[in-house]
């Protein structure tokens, strides 16, 4: 067991692609760290650099206070679970799980003991003498996990280990992974593009975009206090709604309502406002006398009832937001999940299932103004004062990235620790 430190790590592929840019990350001993981000943001690349399967172009990687940049995977004492499991097809489950121990010249009795122990934990005992090709997807996944845990390595690295399972099995296996990591308390770096997985599993979550680390925080902090519009839109499902708005005096003018400016924001003029679907409610069912709560009227176009909750899609005039950060999200999620990012003029509200609002009518809704998130319209960063202080630090780091990408103008927009630029419509 050990901590893992990434110091200013950059990966440049042979064709010039910068897959990871100046990444700094401290993973503590025994921590469950999640790398999350849209497809192609460099999560796998980062993980594979930790594993030693990919050279590090710049920066330093430390495992347990030892610089391992030039160590081969076999000398790093880490175990990895691959997305497609990479089980050895010519070996039985037992041989697959014992392969690493056998290479380490552990004696056969010891290997058998460890393999059988791991098989018991993973419920694979009856399958030990079968070949991977005769196993179900879930069983193969567990063999891959078993291959990692028999070794008791310094750290586990997992690259989307659940993405090949069907939805139900995925949820079930997810809890198993969490339990396993708690029991073993081995450092774990886990890559996923599924924000639900990230939120439920991680001690801390690192959100990446286009090779740049955006925010590293506990799931709760990511959700409640996203550092920029990208993180805000990425975390949470359905995604946060974004509106462009203006602050004049103590008033925050949204396209459909007027709110009080939330505490701790000292900014005037144009802003982007982010509101999570659950911070809306049916006005009839809204908590009375809630500070910051405001009622408004909007045409409800579509209602989706899930039994436990209702999603109401309502439209509004003007004030749709377009930004490259949101465009990134929309590309990754499919436009439907970021309503105001792609469609424009449409937002989703999560309502109490007892709501009697009907489709196609104008309905009275309620918004919790105190929970609104405010972002800078130019660079998409959070306007919370606590965040503004952090920004000063982040910008120093970003300057380095900017300077580097000077020669390569298109890369500039993507660079910068607090995201690219945001252009309100």
């Amino acid at each position, binding site marked *: 067991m050990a901590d893992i430190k990434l110091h200013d790590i950059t990966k440049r592929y*042979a064709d010039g692609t910068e897959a990871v840019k100046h990444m700094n990350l401290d993973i503590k001993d025994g921590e469950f760290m999640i790398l999350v981000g849209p497809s192609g943001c460099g999560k796998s690349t980062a993980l594979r650099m930790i*594993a*030693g*399967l990919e050279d590090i172009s710049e920066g330093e990687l430390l495992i347990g206070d030892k610089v391992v940049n030039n160590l*081969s*995977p*076999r000398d790093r004492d*880490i*175990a*990895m679970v*691959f997305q*497609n*499991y*990479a*089980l*050895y*097809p*010519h070996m039985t489950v037992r041989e697959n799980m014992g*392969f*690493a121990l056998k*290479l*380490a010249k552990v004696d056969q009795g010891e290997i058998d003991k460890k393999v059988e122990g791991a098989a018991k934990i993973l419920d694979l005992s009856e399958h030990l003498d079968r*070949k*991977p*090709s*005769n*196993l179900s*997807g879930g069983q*193969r996944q567990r063999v891959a996990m078993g*291959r990692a845990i028999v*070794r008791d390595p310094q750290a586990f690295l997992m690259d989307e280990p659940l993405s*090949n399972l069907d939805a139900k099995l995925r949820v079930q296996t997810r809890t198993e992974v969490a339990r396993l990591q708690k029991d073993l308390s081995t450092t774990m770096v886990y890559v996923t593009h599924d924000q639900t997985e990230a939120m439920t599993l991680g001690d801390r979550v690192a959100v990446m975009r286009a090779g740049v680390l955006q925010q590293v925080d506990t799931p709760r902090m990511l959700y409640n206090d996203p550092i920029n519009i990208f993180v805000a839109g990425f975390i949470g499902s359905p995604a946060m709604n974004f509106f462009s708005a203006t602050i004049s005096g103590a008033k925050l003018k949204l396209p459909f309502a007027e709110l009080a400016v939330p505490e701790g924001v000292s900014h005037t003029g144009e802003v982007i406002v982010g509101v999570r679907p659950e911070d809306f409610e049916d006005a009839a069912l809204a908590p009375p006398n809630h500070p910051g709560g405001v009622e408004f009227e909007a045409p409800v176009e579509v209602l989706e009832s899930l039994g436990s909750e209702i999603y109401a899609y309502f439209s509004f005039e003007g004030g749709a937001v377009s930004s490259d950060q949101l465009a990134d999200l929309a590309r990754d999620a499919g436009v439907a999940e970021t309503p105001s990012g792609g469609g424009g003029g449409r937002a989703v509200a999560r309502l109490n299932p007892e709501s009697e609002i009907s489709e196609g009518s104008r309905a009275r809704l309620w918004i919790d103004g105190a929970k609104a998130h405010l972002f800078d319209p130019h660079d998409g960063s959070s306007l919370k004062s606590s965040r503004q202080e952090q920004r000063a630090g982040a910008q120093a780091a970003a300057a380095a990235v900017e300077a580097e990408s000077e020669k390569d103008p298109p890369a500039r927009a993507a660079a910068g620790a607090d995201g690219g630029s945001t252009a309100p419509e």
Partner: protein
Amino acid sequence: MENRSRRAYSGWAVALAIVLVYALVPVLWLISLSFKSPATVSDKKFIPTDTTFENYTTLFSGGLDSPLLRPLINSILIALIATIIAVTLAAFTAYAIARLDFPGKTLILAGALAIAMFPPISVVGPLFDMWRALGLYDTYPGLIIPYLTFALPLAIYTLVAFFREIPWELEQAAQVDGATPWQAFRKVILPLATPGVFTAAILVFIFAWNDFLFAITLTSSDRARTVPAALAFFTGESQFTAPTGNIAAAAVLVTIPIIIFVLIFQRRIVAGLTAGAVKG
């Protein structure tokens, strides 16, 4: 539905029967000839009237000095040695070509292809002179070396195709599990490439076994002469009888090792051995 598949089935059966007849009749005719005596060899009858094993026994009469025994041993040894060397070298080469990006990679592949396309007849003349000067004429290496130049490209091409099929990640998994590059190759990649290795081995063996041109040009005695070349030196009982029966018998014998070789290795060429490595 049922009807259609049955009709398709009988169509296939007919096609298969035609191919079988086309391929097997000459072989059967050869077998028939090998059992005929010199007197009846040209009687144009399919079933021999006076079945005799004489054609076979004369091939081996006289022990090591018999017409066929030494050439048969030569053939087997030369083909086997050439196969082992070619497949071993080709396995390393193909692995490097399939896995690594190194300068000159395409050059190697193109060069291999060019050599494979080179007509052997154009090199035997110079080889004859060179081998005599170098003392390789009428020796095992004298045949094995030219076989390798033609068999290696064949084996490399076959194996590259097989190595490319093996998921890269299996090797990376092995590395993470603590394997050295050599261990990863030996314990993970090679076992998975076994069908490819045996396919290449069969192709190379058959190539070396069947070669006539090099064998007839680069040998002068039973020291290194292989069966195809030895057949050409068979003599009849008298100056005026053609050794048809003997040649037929030798031809039958020379086919048997190939059949055995293919039958043994065919069982190893199990398709889909890699199934289950990745999500299926």
